């Protein structure tokens, strides 16, 4: 096997999208358990990725990177599925891929989706993801974004939730040039539940954009958005969270928080909460903060002998951990804790440190540096 995951004890089923081509052999490496069906698909043509893309760039063949995961009703998939989307071409590559997830009634699935690049050129990745959660189903979806500093990622996720379904959608932004994530979550029946969270750790000229549209179309829905960011150097973040509550969506509970720490004067955050509420019996709140590190907390830590640098790391880590602690897979949580600690300590988390290693790459390591 070419890839192996570095997360200890994750013990996941591995799916690999290698340079935009869905590696069908990767399915055969594990026999998907009963009730899990993974099939390559040919999606309808999707819009080209945003931005100026010159025509002489290489694109991965559009029909090879697409698949569908369907979980039969009443199936608890014990082991997580891990999708590794990896690019290691010498030339810049554009990848467009689409995948669809259907979690059947009463079923549950954990999916870890890692976007990675091992090259150091300007790739663009466009992921179009559509998710359907049938009644009483659960999906834990974790997206780890760790692409090189020249690459752009556009992730367009659309979720449809039926009654009593539960979505956890986490996005961890560790590296990349421009990282756009749009999520549209539709509650299309009552008692749907969504936890949409994100953590972005940015430096240099990195840019991260989160656009969330949460549609409470039916009553008794609950949603909780928590997005936190730490920005160093000239990094930029943009957060737009739109909560829509339809007239009949009574007893809706919708919370939204976006909190940011700016480490320099040049770092920049724009946060736009937007609440559009037509029902009257609802609990909705939003909050946004952009600030420096808490000076009195820093002082307190330092009076105990903790150096300024270490004190800052402790505080940033605590800030970030507010999101990470909600990761329900222990092995993934520990892994994230570890790489976030290292990232906050100023270490550059390159792909080979991150989620997995690539054997061929290990041999040719020098050529990539």
């Amino acid at each position, binding site marked *: 096997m070419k890839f192996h995951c570095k997360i200890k004890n994750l013990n996941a089923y591995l799916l690999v999208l290698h340079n935009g081509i869905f590696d069908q052999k990767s399915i055969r490496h594990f026999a998907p358990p009963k009730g899990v069906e993974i099939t390559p698909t040919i999606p309808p043509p999707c819009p080209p990725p945003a931005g100026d893309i010159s025509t002489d760039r290489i694109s991965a063949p559009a029909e090879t990177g697409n698949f569908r995961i369907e979980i039969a009703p009443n199936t608890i998939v014990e082991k997580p599925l891990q999708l590794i989307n990896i690019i290691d071409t010498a030339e810049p590559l554009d990848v467009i891929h689409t995948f669809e997830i259907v979690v059947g009634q009463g079923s549950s699935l954990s999916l870890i989706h890692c976007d990675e690049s091992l090259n150091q050129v300007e790739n663009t990745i466009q992921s179009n993801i559509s998710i359907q959660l049938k009644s009483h189903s659960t999906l834990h979806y974790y997206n780890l974004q760790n692409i090189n500093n020249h690459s752009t990622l556009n992730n367009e996720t659309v979720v449809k939730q039926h009654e009593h379904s539960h979505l956890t959608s986490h996005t961890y932004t560790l590296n990349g040039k421009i990282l756009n994530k749009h999520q549209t979550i539709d509650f299309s029946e009552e008692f749907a539940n969504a936890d949409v969270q994100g953590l972005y750790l940015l430096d240099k000229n990195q840019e991260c954009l989160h656009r969330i549209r949460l549609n409470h179309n039916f009553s008794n829905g609950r949603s909780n958005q928590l997005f936190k960011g730490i920005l160093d150097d000239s990094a930029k973040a943009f957060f737009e969270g739109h909560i829509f509550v339809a007239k009949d969506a009574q007893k809706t509970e919708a919370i939204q928080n976006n909190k940011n720490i700016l480490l320099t004067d040049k770092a920049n955050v724009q946060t736009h909460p937007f609440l559009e509420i037509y029902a009257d019996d609802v609990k909705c709140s939003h909050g946004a903060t952009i600030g420096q590190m808490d000076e009195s907390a820093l002082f*307190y*830590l*330092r009076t*105990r*002998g*903790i*150096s*300024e640098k270490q004190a800052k790391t*402790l505080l940033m880590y605590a800030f970030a*951990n507010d999101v990470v602690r909600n990761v329900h897979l222990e092995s993934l949580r520990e892994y994230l804790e570890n790489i976030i600690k290292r990232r906050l300590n100023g270490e550059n988390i390159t792909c080979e440190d991150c989620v997995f290693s690539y054997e061929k790459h290990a041999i040719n390591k020098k050529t990539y540096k």
Partner: protein
Amino acid sequence: MLTIKNLYASIGEKEILKGLDLQVNAGEVHAIMGPNGTGKSTLASVIAGREKYVVTQGSVTFCGKNLFDFSIEERASEGIFMGFQYPVEIPGVSIANFMRTAVNEQRKYRGLDPMPIFEFQAMMEEKQKVVELTDKLAGRSVNEGFSGGEKKKNEIFQMAMLEPKLAILDETDSGLDIDALRIVANGVNKLKRPDNATVVITHYQRLLDYIIPDFVHIMYDGKIVKTGDKSLALELEEKGYDWIK
């Protein structure tokens, strides 16, 4: 141990310490009393090194060294501990992690290796007993959601962990019930050694029934205006502050 001479300090335009003198020797317990807003907490903060206070005149020598040559964290490692009047809540940082970092950073400063984890855990357990803190608290975030009394006990616990030469305890007695007051005071007494010193800042003579001071100072308008023995505290209790103004 600590020699303060003619200390002036201000915040922004406002001068708060106005020519303060104080001498603290090893083995001594000092109490500082004085009306609200006279600068007691400011004095503690200036000694701890809080940057927002600017020292404009005077000197502070600690164990023969110029205190102003050291950063906040270096002062701590040199052996100064400040118990906060208002301990800061730090969500997401557990007391255990906080103390482990502090202990090891101080050890590093003194050229020692990090403390082995088992040794550290044993020390945590032992020191929690000093102020009758429960184990459960150690796993929680620093001061977050602690009651007023728990916060103050937590300060003394940290002092026990760090074994400072000089502890300045700013109103460690305020907000404590009778039992907690006894526990905190006993904690301070247990930590007393011939080679360390304690300065307690307090409004209440009551505390001094438990922690017997060698000296009582009255601070007023940014300086020490009167020094005596513990009977001075009793006199204050009776007469209030009017007579010193």
